[in-house]
């Protein structure tokens, strides 16, 4: 089974700032990490390989510094990694991104299973998984929290819902997006770190993946972000001091005077 996992480099969610002037994500001085959901996708790929055999390839679309997360993926047990990187990709929305990733995956050879995180913690669209499946003409299941079995090219998975889960069968080749409940990602291994140190991660350009320039980057992106802004803080906060009884009294007074009062 050949498994491809798509991973994205995102700013560490513990350390996200917006540039107050440009209203865009300030990436300067912010640590970049593997999108947390993608980490679970990667782990699931490695576990499937350990159980059913095969190989796991990770791919990422991004600037050259995204090689860092691909190298980290190698240290965590994946077999192969490559980057898709070109100035022409800059400004891609999810439509252009899925086109680029699909071209790269097709170019890399036949694939049985594509795994993605449910969404990326920077853009938060959750569109790339399903969009990529459409581009690859594969069936897909989103928000998978468990893979129960693979038999005769049919996978039985559990899809997380608000009020429980669905058990779904899907025929391979297929694409799944996963939620964090699916597994606990492993740490790197010493052998993996040694391999990562010498592993030369190839980088493919738009031409390398036979991409149609019209469908790439800003030009290939019908979505335009007009403005990004932190939500305005409307509420007022105040602390009530005193003994428990006094606090309760004051709170009751405030509530009855407010719009919530009877």
């Amino acid at each position, binding site marked *: 089974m050949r498994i491809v996992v798509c991973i994205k480099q995102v700013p560490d969610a513990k350390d996200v700032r917006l540039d107050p002037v440009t209203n865009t994500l300030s990436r300067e001085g912010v640590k970049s990490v593997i999108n947390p959901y993608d980490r679970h996708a990667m782990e699931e790929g490695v576990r499937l390989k350990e159980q059913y055999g095969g190989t796991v390839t990770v791919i990422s679309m991004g600037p050259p510094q995204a090689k860092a997360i691909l190298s980290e993926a190698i240290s965590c047990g994946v077999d192969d990694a490559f980057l898709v990187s070109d100035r022409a990709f800059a400004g891609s929305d999810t439509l252009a991104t899925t086109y680029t990733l699909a071209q790269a995956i097709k170019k890399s050879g036949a694939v049985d299973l594509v795994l993605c995180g449910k969404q990326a913690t920077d853009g938060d669209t959750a569109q790339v998984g399903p969009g990529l499946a459409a581009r690859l003409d594969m069936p897909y299941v989103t928000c998978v929290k468990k893979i129960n079995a693979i038999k005769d090219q049919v996978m039985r998975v559990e899809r997380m819902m608000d009020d429980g889960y669905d058990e779904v069968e899907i025929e391979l080749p297929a694409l799944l997006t996963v939620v964090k409940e699916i597994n606990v990602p492993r740490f*790197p291994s010493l052998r*993996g770190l*040694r391999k990562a140190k010498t592993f030369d991660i190839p980088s493919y350009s738009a031409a390398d993946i036979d991409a149609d320039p019209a469908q790439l980057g800003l030009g290939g992106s019908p979505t335009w972000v007009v403005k990004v802004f932190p939500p305005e803080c409307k509420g007022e906060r105040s602390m009530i001091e005193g003994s428990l009884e006094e606090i309760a009294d004051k709170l009751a007074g405030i509530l009855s005077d407010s719009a919530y009062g009877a």
Partner: protein
Amino acid sequence: MDRVDHFLTEDQQMIVDLARQITDEMVIPNRARYDETEEYPLDIVEALAKSDFFALFVPEEYGGLGGSCYDLVLALEQIGRGCVGIATAYAASALGAYPIIVGGSHELKSKYLPDIASGKKRAAFALTESNAGSDAGGIQTTAVLDGDEWVINGTKQWITNGGQAHLYTVIAITDPSRGARGASMFVVEADDPGFSCGPKEKKMGIRCSATTELIFRDCRIPKDRIIGRQGTGFITVMKTLDRSRPGIASLGVGLAQAALDESVTYAKGRYQFGKPIISFQAVQHMLADMAIETEAARALVYVSARHIDAHPKDMSKASAMCKVKATDVAMKVAVDAVQVFAGYGFMREYPVEKMMRDAKILQIYEGTNQIQRNVVGQELNKEYT
């Protein structure tokens, strides 16, 4: 943190960094729970196995990463900084594997070491009995050859990893008339007939690590499970302990470092008489001594580990010296850490009381520090003839 630079290689630094990451993200957040529940930390041991830490002490030709003493010392220092109990649950497999590594035949090594390196099988070392610990000559467990099988009878006491290990390296008397030359070591598998483990002992510290009796009642094992030749048991034990003691020493260094880190951080934040207590010389000098002793212990442990890796003819003295120094330092620094924390230090809400309880075992197991001083003394006596 600005520490003394030991000029580690890139590969050694990688071991330190990964051990530190696992310690910070998995060991430290869970240590108090494991101390309370006294449960064996299986999830952490398995994570260490997946990250190749069990391969660290196994030679490359048997599925390991080399088996250098220094590499293991560097890893154990980090894990010990998080929790000596969890570190012991891991290190016990190294101790259990060493007899096979130092004394086993190629067949025995090929049979057992790859599974130990991958973490598929855990090991334990069984020497101590109710009447034999420091005095290894008091061993009463026997092994008698019966056709193609050894028949083992006796009881081992306080065996780390008891009940959790898949294989046990056990010393037993094979010829009572030959004294120290009458003992041999064997590999006993957990499901061998006649073998069983007692209940888990209740301990002062390192509570999550498993410590049990091992009971052999006409335990029958194949003839080829003997480690080395008959009568070489004591030599194998001594060679094993020479290599393993720096590991215990490094747990001491890790624990001392953790106690120091906690103490300095606390002393900077704790105000009395309107000032942080680190501004009082009485406290500052305590912290200074803790730091000086910790660095000194670390230096001796690293140097001893490198000395051992050079395969000298005699490594007992260096091995014993670093074990004594680092574990005595760990005890002293942990007691002082509780003193710096004062009332808070005595509370289980803070980590230093556990460090103080855990430190004590380091002066006792793998040879008490009194026995280590005997080793150093005897070596001196030999050297100055």
